[in-house]
C-alpha cells in the first residue's frame, strides 16, 4: 500500500477516516459510565421507546409499500387520464418533510381547525368538533411519515417496473395468469430488490425521524436520545441509546441481506429484453387508476401545501414576524457551503479510489457511506462527544486553547456533520457517474500525455457535470429539510426555515409555523422539479 501512496490516495483516506470518526464514537461511547437516569429509564420508559419505534416502523413500512408500489404499478403499466402528469407529480411529496405534514394534519383536524371552518362555511354553525376525527399521536405520526416518505418506494419500484421486459408479462399470459396473478407472482417478485431498497430508505428515515414524533409527543428512541441530552444533560446515555438504534438499523440491513440469499434478479440485457407496451385503460378501471393517483397526490402534496398557504393568507401578520430574507440567506449559505464541500471531497475520494485501486481505501469508503443510515440526531451527539473528548484529552494536554467553540454551535460544525450525514449521497451520486467512464478512457488520456491531475480536471470533471449538478440539488434538498442536526448544532440566533417552523410549532404557534413551512415546501418543490428529469429518466 505505502508503495502506491500518492496525494489522491492520502486525500481519499483522510476523507473516509474523517467521516468514520462520529460513527466509531457512538460505538466506543457505549462503554462509558452514564448517570442514574439510565437505570431509571431502563426500569420505566426504555421498553416504551423501543415498542413505539417498532410500531411506527412496521406501520409506516406497510403503508408506504401499499401506496408506493400500487402507484408505481399504475403509472408504469397503464395509460389513463393524467398518467404522465402523475408520473412526476407523485414525487413532489419529497418537498413536504414529515414534521410539516404533521403540522398540516393537526391544523386541519384539530378543534376549530380548518375542517371545522370548512364545515361551518358550508352548513352553518354547529357542533362539528366531536365528529371530526383526530389524527394525532402515533396514528398521526404514521400518516405524516407515510405520505412524506412513500416516494422512495414509488421511485425505485417504478424504475424496476420500467426495466421489466414485456417477455415477463407475455410469459404470464402464456401460462394463463390473470393480471392480478401476473402481478403478484411475476412482476412483484422481480421488482423485489428495488422495493426492498425503497423500504430500507423508508425504515432509516422513520427510525431517524425527530420532528414529527416530537410534535406528536411520542416517545421513540430518537426523541429519547434528544431528551437524555437536552433535558438530562447525559451525553453518555444519549450515546447508549444511539447504540441501540444503530444496532436496530444494522439488523434491518442484515435481515434484508439474508432474506435475499443468492437470488439473482437482473435480466439479460442482450436479446432477452423487449420494451414494454403500456395498456390503455378505459371505463371504471381508468377512473379507479386516476382516482387512486389523484388521492395520493392530493394527500401527500396538495393538502399540506394548501393548508400552509391558507394559514399564511389568513394570518398575513406572520409574514412580517419572521425575517424571510435572513432565513433565505442562511439557507443558501448552508446549502452552498455544505454542497460544495461535499462535492469537492467526494470527487477527490472517488478519483482516489479509481486511481489507487487500494483495497483498504475501498473498504473504508464502503463503510464511510453508512453515515446516511445513522440518524442526524446521533451524528450530532456523536460529534459533540468527539469534540469534547478531543478538546479535553488532546488539545488541552498540548496546552492549546479550547476548540469547542470553533466546532460546537458554529457553521463549521454544522457543515462537518452535514458532511458525514450526506457523504453517501455525494459519494454514490458521483460514483454512479464515474461508472459510466470506462477505465480505458483514463488510460487513453495518460497515453495522450495527460497527468492524473489533468485527467481529473480536463476529462472527468466535464464528463461528470450533470452528475455533479444532480448531487448538488439532492444535497440541497436534504439540507433545506434537515431538522435535528441544524437544531442542535446551529450557532446562536442562526435560523433556517426548518428550525423556525419547528420552534413555532413546539410553542404551539402552528399558524406562525405556516410561513416558514410554506417557503420550505416551495423551495424544495423547485429543487425537485430540477431533479425530476434525472430521477424519472427512462433510458
Amino acid at each position, binding site marked *: 500500500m505505502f508503495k502506491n501512496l500518492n496525494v489522491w490516495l492520502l486525500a481519499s483516506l483522510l476523507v473516509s477516516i474523517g467521516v468514520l470518526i462520529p460513527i466509531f464514537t457512538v460505538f466506543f461511547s457505549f462503554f462509558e459510565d452514564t448517570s442514574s437516569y439510565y437505570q431509571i429509564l431502563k426500569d420505566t420508559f426504555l421498553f416504551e421507546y423501543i415498542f413505539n419505534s417498532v410500531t411506527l416502523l412496521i406501520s409506516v413500512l406497510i403503508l408506504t409499500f401499499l401506496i408506493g408500489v400500487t402507484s408505481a404499478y399504475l403509472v408504469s403499466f397503464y395509460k389513463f387520464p393524467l398518467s404522465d402528469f402523475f408520473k412526476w407529480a407523485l414525487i413532489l411529496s419529497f418537498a413536504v418533510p414529515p414534521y410539516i405534514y404533521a403540522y398540516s394534519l393537526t391544523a386541519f383536524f384539530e378543534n376549530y381547525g380548518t375542517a371545522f371552518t370548512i364545515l361551518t362555511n358550508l352548513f352553518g354553525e354547529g357542533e362539528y368538533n366531536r365528529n371530526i376525527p383526530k389524527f394525532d399521536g402515533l396514528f398521526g405520526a404514521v400518516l405524516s411519515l407515510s405520505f412524506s416518505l412513500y416516494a422512495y418506494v414509488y421511485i425505485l419500484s417504478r424504475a424496476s417496473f420500467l426495466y421489466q421486459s414485456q417477455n415477463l408479462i407475455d410469459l404470464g399470459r402464456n401460462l394463463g395468469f390473470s393480471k392480478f396473478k401476473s402481478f403478484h407472482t411475476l412482476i412483484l417478485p422481480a421488482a423485489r430488490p428495488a422495493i426492498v431498497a425503497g423500504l430500507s430508505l423508508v425504515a432509516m428515515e422513520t427510525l431517524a425521524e425527530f420532528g414529527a414524533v416530537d410534535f406528536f409527543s411520542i416517545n421513540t428512541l430518537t426523541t429519547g436520545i434528544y431528551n437524555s441530552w437536552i433535558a438530562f444533560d447525559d451525553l453518555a446515555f444519549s450515546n447508549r441509546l444511539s447504540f441501540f438504534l444503530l444496532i436496530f438499523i444494522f439488523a434491518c440491513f442484515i435481515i434484508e441481506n439474508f432474506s435475499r440469499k443468492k437470488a439473482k434478479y437482473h435480466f439479460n440485457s442482450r436479446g432477452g429484453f423487449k420494451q414494454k407496451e403500456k395498456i390503455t385503460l378505459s371505463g371504471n378501471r381508468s377512473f379507479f387508476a386516476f382516482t387512486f393517483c389523484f388521492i395520493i397526490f392530493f394527500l401527500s402534496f396538495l393538502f399540506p401545501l394548501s393548508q400552509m398557504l391558507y394559514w399564511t393568507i389568513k394570518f398575513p401578520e406572520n409574514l412580517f414576524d419572521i425575517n424571510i430574507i435572513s432565513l433565505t440567506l442562511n439557507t443558501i449559505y448552508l446549502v452552498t457551503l455544505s454542497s460544495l464541500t461535499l462535492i469537492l471531497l467526494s470527487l477527490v475520494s472517488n478519483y482516489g479510489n479509481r486511481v489507487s485501486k487500494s483495497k483498504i481505501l475501498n473498504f473504508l469508503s464502503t463503510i464511510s457511506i453508512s453515515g446516511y443510515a445513522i440518524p442526524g440526531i446521533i451524528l450530532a451527539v456523536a460529534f459533540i462527544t468527539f469534540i469534547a473528548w478531543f478538546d479535553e484529552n488532546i488539545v488541552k494536554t498540548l496546552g492549546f486553547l479550547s476548540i469547542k467553540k470553533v466546532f460546537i454551535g458554529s457553521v463549521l460544525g454544522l457543515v462537518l456533520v452535514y458532511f458525514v450525514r450526506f457523504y453517501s449521497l455525494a459519494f454514490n451520486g458521483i460514483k454512479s457517474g464515474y461508472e*459510466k*467512464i*470506462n477505465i*480505458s*478512457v483514463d*488510460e*487513453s*488520456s*495518460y*497515453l*495522450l*500525455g*495527460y*497527468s492524473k491531475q*489533468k485527467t481529473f480536471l480536463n*476529462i472527468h470533471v*466535464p*464528463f461528470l*457535470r450533470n452528475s455533479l449538478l444532480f448531487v448538488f440539488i439532492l444535497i440541497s434538498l436534504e439540507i433545506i429539510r434537515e431538522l435535528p442536526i441544524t437544531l442542535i448544532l446551529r450557532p446562536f440566533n442562526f435560523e433556517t426555515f426548518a428550525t423556525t417552523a419547528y420552534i413555532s410549532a413546539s410553542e404551539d404557534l402552528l399558524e406562525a409555523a405556516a410561513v416558514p413551512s410554506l417557503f420550505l415546501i416551495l423551495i424544495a418543490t423547485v429543487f425537485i422539479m430540477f431533479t425530476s428529469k434525472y430521477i424519472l429518466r427512462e433510458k
Partner: protein
Amino acid sequence: MKNNFLEIKGVDFTIGGKTKVENASFVIENEGETLCILGPSGIGKTTILRTIAGLEKIEKGTINLNGKLLSSKDQNIEPENRNISLAFQDNSLFPHYTVEKNILLGAERNKEKTKKKLLLKK
C-alpha cells in the same frame, strides 16, 4: 555501442496480481521496425503492450526505450511521460467531447511539446 530502440529484459508481465508472461526478453533494434506478437487468447499479449505503455508496473526485469530506463522494480515512468501510444481493443473515446475535440486531445500534447522544443531552440 548502439542502443536497441526497445529492449525488454527478463520481465515478468503481470496484471491484476496474476503473472501472464514469465521472464520474457526481446528487442526491437531500430525505430520503425514492426514486431508481431502472436498467441492464443488470454496468453498475455495485451498485458505486454499495457506494461510497455506504462499502464501496468513490473516487479522483475527492465524495459528500456532508446537506452532510457522506463520500467524496473524500483523505477516507473508514468504513462503520460513515456510518449508511447496504444490503440485499445474496446471503445475508449471521450464520450462528452466532439469528434474534433477527441482528435485534437492528442495533438494538444504534441503542440505543447513542439512549442517547448521551439523555445529551447531559440
